[in-house]
């Protein structure tokens, strides 16, 4: 199922004019504070009625200003994780979690126990939201949305209030959801790590406009987008197949450019994975380096060199069939005489490719 969004709306001084397509999978909305991300989600949810435009989910028109169609919010079958929680204060955590189920058509959906366990809120079920901590509230809100058995999941910075460990527990769940269902997920996040890991599609917003949108791996690996994404988020994805699980806890994958060793990846042999490599985690060398602790050394060819305004440079590489980005100093780029066509080696540490950036091939 795919979500098509195209609408314009004004509040006060702020005007919103967006159009994008969110296919099944995770569509990340990213952009500065106040750029209109929550407003877009609200329009999709039906909480804002845009001045003009059309929003369509699969075959269903949710909103059409011209044809004066607007499906009532409660018939849109949403799971909306609000930026500010919005738990029902008079209901226990359990009742909050079950709220959407009263209305959802009976269907297998998500298992209550599984969601609760994953979110670590087993101990809170009989409490009321009033006394919960910020992160606990946020987790209950996520659970409530997931359990509503939605056709469309809207998540507005769902993990912002959570610690890294908790995030690391929830992200794989969202990945699984992305892989197993065909419901579109609109996901607002300021964390490029999250975006890079989860997003199938990426929509970058600024001042109420969409400034870039498209498949996440394309948007993220386009050196032109580095300024918009922020330098620390730039990176590209390698496609690789799980080849072996070694005894020392490393997993060997085969990319088109050669073998990759990563900390244990929980995937079966033969599985095809997309591995995101941040530009700043890549070291380049003109000769194959020896005796380094970094295990992964891929031969590559320089495709493009983009010198930034600061002391850095972004180098786009081809490694086998994949494109990679490397961020190095301009001084090194000159010293190594990196120019389009130059052959070199890309060095990456196994541990730099953290768990959170290995995903099923989106």
């Amino acid at each position, binding site marked *: 199922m795919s979500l098509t969004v195209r609408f314009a709306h004004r509040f006060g001084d702020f005007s919103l004019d967006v159009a994008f397509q969110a296919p099944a999978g995770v569509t990340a909305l990213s952009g500065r504070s106040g750029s209109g991300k929550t407003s877009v989600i609200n329009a999709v*949810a*039906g*909480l804002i009625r845009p001045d003009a435009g059309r929003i369509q989910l699969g075959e269903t028109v949710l909103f059409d200003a011209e044809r004066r169609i607007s499906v*009532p*919010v*409660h*018939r*849109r*079958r*949403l*799971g*909306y994780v*609000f930026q*500010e929680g*919005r738990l*029902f*204060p*008079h*209901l226990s955590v359990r009742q909050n979690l079950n*709220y*959407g189920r*009263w*209305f*959802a058509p009976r269907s297998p959906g998500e298992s209550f126990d599984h969601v609760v366990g994953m979110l670590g809120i087993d101990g809170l079920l009989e*409490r*009321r*939201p*009033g*006394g*919960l901590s910020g992160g606990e509230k946020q987790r209950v809100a996520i659970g*409530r*949305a997931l359990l*509503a058995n939605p056709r469309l999941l*809207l998540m507005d910075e769902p993990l912002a209030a959570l610690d890294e460990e908790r995030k690391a527990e929830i992200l794989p769940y969202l990945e699984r959801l992305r892989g197993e269902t065909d419901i579109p997920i609109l996901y607002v996040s300021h964390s490029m790590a999250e975006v890079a890991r989860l997003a199938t599609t990426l929509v970058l917003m600024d001042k109420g406009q969409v400034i870039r949108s498209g498949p996440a791996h394309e948007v993220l690996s386009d050196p032109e987008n580095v300024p918009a994404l922020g330098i620390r988020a730039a990176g590209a994805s390698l496609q690789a197949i799980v080849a072996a699980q070694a005894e020392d806890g490393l997993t060997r994958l085969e990319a088109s450019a050669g073998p990759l060793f990563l900390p244990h990846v929980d995937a079966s042999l033969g599985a095809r994975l997309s591995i995101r490599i941040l530009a700043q985690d890549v070291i380049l060398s003109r000769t194959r380096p020896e005796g380094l602790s970094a295990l992964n050394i891929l031969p590559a060819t320089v495709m493009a060199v983009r010198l930034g305004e600061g002391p850095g440079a972004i180098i786009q590489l081809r490694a086998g069939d994949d494109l990679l980005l490397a961020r190095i100093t301009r001084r090194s780029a000159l010293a190594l005489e990196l120019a389009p066509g130059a052959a070199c080696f890309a060095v990456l540490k196994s541990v730099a490719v953290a768990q959170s950036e290995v995903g099923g091939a989106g």
Partner: protein
Amino acid sequence: MLDGLPGGLTFTLTPDEWRAVALSLKVSVWATLVSLPFGVAVAYVLARYEFWGKQALNGLVHLPLILPPVVTGYILLMTFGRKGFVGGLLDQYLGIVLAFRWTGAALAAAVMAFPLMVRAIRLAIEAVDPKLEQAASTLGASRAWVFATVTLPLILPGVIAGAILAFAKAMGEFGATITFVSNIPGQTQTLPSAIYSFLQVPGGDAQAARLVLIAVAIALLALLLSEWIGRAVARRIAGS
């Protein structure tokens, strides 16, 4: 029953007085309970919708507060009396007679208490964060369900406050009641009517005072109960 208090006051009630106490309770409880759903509905409509005639409805609801009770009583008599337009229809098609019945006393009490009830509930509704209602609707709850599962539980303290105000008012209502349904011992003689009777004759003060104390005791009990329920509800919402 407390007999022979120091002041020479005796709390032994005559059968008529007992009946007046029982009747007042019955009238007030029914007036409160039956008008409660209407009160909630009207308060909701006034709090959450804009429509043509809204201020007229608002004014109508407040009318019994503004009018001298006797006038309200007359209007009820003219409307709901057996010869009145609505009263006639009720009698003819539903067999409901209000005039000179305790049901009429309940109607009068309900009408007089209605503005108080509606105001309290309306204030409570206006204090509910619409964002919570929105959240419920994103989860699939239709407007009616949102009301039943989110709005109503959240306004419960306000509803209780409204109900108790209405009950207290109903216990004290006199002018409209006696004008509409008169004072028939055992049928429409409420506590305030009995008290009024005593006050009309020289030397009736002590007897009136006795009944006043009973009325006050009942109403205070109800008040305490409502405070207690309200507190329990509020505590539940705040989360232990």
